């Protein structure tokens, strides 16, 4: 019997019980759809993180405090508070670090902004005058604060594009207006041009104030902690030299002789990227594994229904054997049925999962999805494989039936 004939027979078998075939397919559909969707979420996230890191700025290096340990337990990435303004000044000294163009400290927290009766929760970035240059932000209106304003704890603020939109929705000019940040009055002196929401967080949803002002009025407790230092190297070729200079300078200012004991870490974009992509890959694998479980459940559903089908069609199998069907003919018939169920379920699952992946970012803000070609091919291959794997046992059972007993079966 040719494969075409077997397909025809299998089709007849499947259409004889449409509801059941449909429900069985649904199991695979959901499994494949979940794999496609969740892997798309994982891929989308990792793509966004990558874009975000790339858009941090050009020739950028970031200095983080080292992870602290408390009672021998690591408190996690950059959990220490070892960086100070003195470090920033040391890095800006051309004699220490000739390959460094600029270094900006940042510190941050939550910011509750109000203007008139409008309210917006955003994040606060305390920094210095070189921030737009190093982090590659343009100003849409007004200007950024000056060195004098940083030194004078000036209560001035530069709004991110999203914040400006939320507080000034009618299009009035924010420049010169007074907004309240955590109940402190600030004068708006500039608005950033939008960078786009290409990161894990919205890069336009923040408000920048002089770091000294943040310390004095917004973060409380009179602390003067620097969370990160962004450093711009003079060129892409100078990044490695700059990284070495930064390390050397900071070891000196922190009075540490052994580099292994450093209480800070200097990462370039490639290193940040690889750290982040490790995390997002883990996320993708985890999401995919959860979805794969439902695919296996779908496969068991196929096996279950094929066993029922084989039992129901015992007599038919007996008839076919009596008129000359060999074992492989019967085997092929039932294998094709189960593979057909899983393959069609798989294709529908790819369509449904793909559509859901396209639609999901519209429903959940801040989420991007990316359906990758290999994941589609893999999902289809796996679903057909599942049909084969879970179909073999029932089909084999059918093929081994004794024709006499099968003919007698009622």
């Amino acid at each position, binding site marked *: *019997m*040719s494969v075409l*004939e077997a397909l025809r027979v299998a089709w*007849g*078998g499947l259409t*004889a019980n449409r509801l059941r075939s449909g429900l069985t397919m649904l199991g695979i559909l959901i499994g494949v759809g979940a794999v496609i969707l969740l892997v798309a979420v994982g891929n989308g996230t990792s793509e966004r993180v990558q874009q975000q890191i790339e858009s941090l700025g050009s020739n950028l290096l970031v200095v983080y405090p080292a992870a602290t340990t408390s009672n021998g337990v690591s408190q996690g990435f950059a959990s220490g508070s070892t960086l100070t303004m003195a470090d920033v000044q040391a890095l800006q000294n051309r004699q220490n670090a000739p390959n460094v163009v600029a270094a900006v400290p940042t510190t941050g927290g939550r910011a509750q902004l109000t203007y008139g009766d409008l309210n917006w929760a955003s994040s606060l970035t305390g920094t210095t005058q070189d921030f737009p240059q190093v982090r590659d932000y343009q100003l849409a209106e007004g200007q950024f604060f000056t060195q004098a304003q940083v030194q004078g704890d000036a209560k001035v603020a530069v709004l991110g594009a999203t914040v400006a939109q939320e507080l000034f929705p009618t299009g009035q000019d924010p420049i010169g207006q007074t907004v309240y940040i955590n109940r402190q009055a600030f004068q708006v002196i500039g608005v950033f041009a939008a960078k786009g929401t290409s990161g894990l967080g919205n890069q336009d949803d923040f408000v920048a104030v002089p770091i000294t002002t943040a310390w004095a009025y917004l973060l409380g407790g009179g602390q003067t902690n620097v969370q990160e230092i962004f450093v711009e190297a003079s060129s892409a070729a100078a990044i490695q030299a700059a990284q070495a200079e930064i390390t050397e300078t900071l070891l000196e200012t922190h009075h540490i002789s052994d580099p292994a004991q450093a209480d800070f870490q200097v990462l370039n974009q490639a290193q940040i990227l690889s750290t982040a992509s490790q995390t997002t890959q883990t996320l993708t694998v985890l999401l995919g594994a959860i979805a794969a479980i439902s695919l296996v459940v779908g496969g068991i559903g196929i096996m279950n229904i094929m066993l029922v089908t084989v039992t129901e069609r015992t*007599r*038919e199998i*007996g*008839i*076919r*054997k*009596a*008129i*000359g*069907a*060999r*074992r*492989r*003919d019967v085997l092929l018939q039932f294998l094709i049925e189960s593979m057909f169920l899983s393959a069609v379920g798989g294709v529908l699952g790819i369509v449904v999962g793909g559509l859901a992946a396209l639609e999901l970012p519209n429903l959940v803000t801040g989420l991007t999805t990316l359906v990758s070609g290999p994941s589609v091919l893999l999902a289809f291959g796996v679903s057909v494989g599942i049909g084969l794997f879970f179909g073999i046992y029932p089909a084999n059972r059918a093929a081994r039936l004794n*024709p*006499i007993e099968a*003919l007698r079966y009622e």
Partner: protein
Amino acid sequence: MIISLQRVTKVYRMGEVEVHALRGIDLEVEEGEFVAVVGASGSGKSTLMNILGCLDVPTTGRYLLQGIDVADLDDDQLAVVRNRLIGFVFQSFNLIPRATALHNVEMPLIYGGQRRERRDRALAALEVVGLADRAQHLPSELSGGQQQRVAIARALINDPAIVLADEPTGNLDSESSAEIMQVFTELNREGRTVILITHEADIAAYARRVVRMRDGLIVGDERLAVTPGSEERWR
């Protein structure tokens, strides 16, 4: 010699009990014979039918079908023998319910690997049993007699060496029974070897040779004179 059984026995195991269904059968059937195997239920005639039809193999003894010793064949080879040499007609018709009459008839050709003229040959076989106009009907849309005629067409499609009919009229009313038996008589008249299993003397009377079985043994083997009017008794 188309069929030759030599000291054939068949023993089944039913749990702890051994059932001796056949206790040593010797039987020879020539080409073109019309043989009825009769006997009460439990006489072993169904077991004999299964062995003759290559659905089962003897426990001991030899069964030569057209000179082939079936004891040497594995499952798949037996399937090929059933496909090529044997046409089955069952008491309960055994048509595939989802397939049309035409598709049921051409099924042995599918398993036989025939690709060409399948449809034409199946239609021709339906023509022989007078059902060419019902080719596209499902079994459920046909009467019992018509279903059995479809089954006969299916049995004939591969031009088998023997037609094996197991109580072919057991589920039919007397009128349909007579029609079916006439089809067999006609086939035999054209030279086809027909072996009929029945427990009804009236049906056995259509055959030209009656083999009687009891307790797994052949207890009688008589050749009947041709009685052209035998089917008249059914009218």
